[in-house]
């Protein structure tokens, strides 16, 4: 059997480098959103009415469904356009970061260029589809 050959990643300014940078920057962006979520939650009486686990759930995804099961008396302030936009931004960064990471891990174990290309297209499709599902869930909850 012929050993499959693949080209080594190139140094310099290219797509791989851009995605490498995007992974780091999207991580920082998600930190920013999580910190905004935590500060806002503390201002909205999270300290008296939420456990730290509830607070973290809210920080990872600011969705009113994460607040329903806590002691927060009125979740009106936890809904609305601001938190929907924050949720969609979080979804965009987390989704692209996650799918890119998934492909990164898979490609470490796959050497055939053809299968790698198919997986990349599949990854892109899954990303678009799951973003649509996520935006629907955010806008309807």
């Amino acid at each position, binding site marked *: 059997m012929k050993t499959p050959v693949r080209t080594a990643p190139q140094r310099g300014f290219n797509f791989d480098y851009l995605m490498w940078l995007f992974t780091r920057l999207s991580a920082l962006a998600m930190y920013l959103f999580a910190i905004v979520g935590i500060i806002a939650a503390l201002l909205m009486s999270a300290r008296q009415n939420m456990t730290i686990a509830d607070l973290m759930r809210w920080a990872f995804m600011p969705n009113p469904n994460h607040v329903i099961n806590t002691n927060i008396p009125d979740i009106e302030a936890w809904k609305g356009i601001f938190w929907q936009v924050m949720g969609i931004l979080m979804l965009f960064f987390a989704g692209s970061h996650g799918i890119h990471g*998934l492909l990164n891990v898979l490609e470490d174990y796959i050497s055939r260029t053809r299968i790698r290309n198919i997986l990349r297209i599949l990854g892109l499709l899954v990303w678009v589809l799951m973003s649509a599902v996520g935006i629907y869930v955010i806008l309807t909850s």
Partner: protein
Amino acid sequence: MLTYILHRIGGLCIVIFVSLHMLASFLANQAWGTTAGIFINTIYENWLFQIFIFFCALFHVINGLRIVILDLWPKLIEFQREAIWIEWFVFLPIYGIALYAIIRSGLGG
């Protein structure tokens, strides 16, 4: 090496969990998918599962911050050993407090 493996496994678990969790929330909103959606969400709301996914997510988040800092300021790579120590000193208390909250509400206290 341990942090590298945990970062990969944790990342994969988060991708699978978040995708299924979003699909379940989507299904629970549809007339034809309520049962399936609620069934999947019951698994995720179980406190035993929460212990697992909180480990994956928190470790990925805190280890990720270390990677970002060391990658964007390459001079700091000299201190990577110390960075991993700091990382565990940050991770363990945060995860410990979250674990305490999850187990206490899981046991109905």
